């Protein structure tokens, strides 16, 4: 039996636009129209930097800024991948699982203190390939089995985590390959190589989003999947490609994380999903898809990292960080007007 729900929805639309739901919208409207709203994250970032500098001038020191850039490297690379998924209106919860698989692969294949492998940079390629493969499987599970991405990737999260912990035998394994460790240790123009890799990831992501058909199609699907389909976009293929692309970025991030820590262990991914989602959402990419992009995410990552750094400088317990990030997610999503398009929020 099919009941047309259209009239019901429109009635509920009117009813639901009550004060409570409109309030965040009104606040956002105070800042002006759409154009101004897109600048809000940048304003937040600048305000944050100014406030922290006033509270503790050490923030602005070059040494500290390099530290901020260094700790932004892995989140930025992760968030680049996640941005494409969220732009489609989907979500990828497998960030931590994929990252730990990539870190596990690079550590086990390069020189390490557990087995005799020493494949050098081939290990890095293998790790990125493993990340891409994880993303590919996520995408295939979602499109072939036709299940929502948050469930597909929730499963993949734990599959990845289980696989990496199993392969590591539950212990921490050191990465002894000097050339890979250089990613974290060698500096170019004052910044660690990892930062340059992350910057490269950002460039690649920006090119994909703004200058390729894939990028346009991802935006189109996020804007309205039905319209995209009717316009001849091969939705399933774009989805699978986007998830594989996200896995590619998570793979790079896994290599960077392993290089920075000099090892891989069971909890190498802990908290990374959270930071990445916060960065993407705070940057202004709408969870409903179709709005935002990698430039937004760059600002979002900087907001999250600067805030974390600032909290340490101000002597606030680092344990509160997740609490603050959680509140930031809620605030950012609540302030984005686009949710008003949603008829049902599940």
């Amino acid at each position, binding site marked *: 039996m099919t009941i047309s*729900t259209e009239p019901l929805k429109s009635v509920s639309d009117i009813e639901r636009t009550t004060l409570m739901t409109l309030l965040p919208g009104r606040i956002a409207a105070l800042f002006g129209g759409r154009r101004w709203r897109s600048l809000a994250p940048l304003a937040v970032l600048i305000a944050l930097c100014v406030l922290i500098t006033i509270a503790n001038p050490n923030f602005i020191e070059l040494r500290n800024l390099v530290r901020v850039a260094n700790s932004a490297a892995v989140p930025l690379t992760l968030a680049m991948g996640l941005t494409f998924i969220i732009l489609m209106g989907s979500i990828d919860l497998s960030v931590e699982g994929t990252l730990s698989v990539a870190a596990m692969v690079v550590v086990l294949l390069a020189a390490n203190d557990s087995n005799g492998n020493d494949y050098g940079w081939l290990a890095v390629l293998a790790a990125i390939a493993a990340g891409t493969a994880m993303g590919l499987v996520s995408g295939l599970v979602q499109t072939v089995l036709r299940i929502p*991405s948050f469930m597909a990737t929730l499963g993949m999260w734990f599959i990845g*985590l*289980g696989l990496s912990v199993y392969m590591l035998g539950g212990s921490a394994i050191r990465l002894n390959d000097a050339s890979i460790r250089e990613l974290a240790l060698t500096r170019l123009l004052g910044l660690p190589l990892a930062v340059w890799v992350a910057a490269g990831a950002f460039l690649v992501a920006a090119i994909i989003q703004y200058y390729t058909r894939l990028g346009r199609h991802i935006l189109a699907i996020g804007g309205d*999947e039905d319209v995209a389909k009717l316009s001849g976009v091969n939705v399933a293929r774009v989805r699978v490609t986007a998830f594989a692309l996200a896995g590619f970025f998570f793979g790079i991030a896994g290599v960077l994380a392993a290089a920075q820590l000099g090892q891989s262990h069971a909890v190498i991914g802990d908290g990374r999903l959270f930071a990445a989602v916060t960065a993407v959402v705070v940057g202004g990419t709408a969870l409903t898809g179709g709005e935002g992009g990698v430039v937004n995410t760059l600002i979002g990552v900087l907001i999250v990292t600067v805030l974390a750094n600032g909290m340490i400088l101000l002597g606030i*317990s680092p*344990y509160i960080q997740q609490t603050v*990030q*959680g*509140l930031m997610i809620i605030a950012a999503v609540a302030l984005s007007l686009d949710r008003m398009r949603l008829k049902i929020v599940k």
Partner: protein
Amino acid sequence: MNEAFSIKRIFEGKWTQGAIPLVLLVTLLLIIEIAAPGFLTGETVALLFANTAVLFILATGVTFAILLGGIDLSIQAVASLASVILAQLLPSLGLAAFPVAILSGLAFGALSGIVHVKLRVPSFVATLATGGVVTGIALWVSDGRAITIEEGGRENTAWINATIAGLPVVVLISAVIGIAAFLALRYTRFGRQAIAVGAGEPAAWAAGINVDRTKIIAFAASGMLAAVAGVVLAARLSSGSPVLANQLLLPAIAAVIVGGTAITGGLGGVARTAVGALIISIVRIGMTFVGVNIFLENMVFGAVLIAAVAITIDRSKMAVIK
């Protein structure tokens, strides 16, 4: 092709979705009984139930959220926070620490619900965010360490580890919670309305159901039961820690889905979750028994989750699968 179609149709029939998990459970029990005769004695079954109790309580809570078509990703954080609160407060408050810990879960569950409903944030993001908030608080309160429940506090947790008439108290607790949740879903206005909202939100709204209130109550219930699970876990392990329940999120959600509750909402219930939790528990025991590496458990559960979602999901309800 034809055959595949009919198999698909069988899987999509509603009664089979309720029956398959039960058949699976009985089959698993029979396999174990054949492999290790004597498994199905009172003692081992009581032990099985006792080991399933925490998982079942958590899964019962998240059943409410899933029945509404939502999801609660904050249960492990809430359970861990409750364990920390219990361990912190037992020395000073004694038995009064239990209600404080459980009410904290209720409060954070309600907070998730309010954020989800009033700010119109999708539930998986709303609960991901509140989960982060709660984890941060738990880390802060405990200073990032596990807190052992000392001798003095253990007097007040001993009753949870006791047995009454041969049955462990944890089993009784989970049975009471299970029955209460079952009755609440089946015979109270809230329960009927929750199922109606899950089955079709616009229709439920048009029928005059207060959708927002129903959702907030469901998420509050989920948070409260998560806290109960955390408290029981802390009492059993004599320790509270901000990461105590982290490994339980996936098995809990898997238990609900494997039991036959569809993530699209409106179909399923606590009885199915009980079957699902037992299946998860037996699979876990079975894996240890067969010699599957303990680190591979997460992999198996991840795959089981994906398979179960694929079978139980009601695709006619989703115009676009995001």
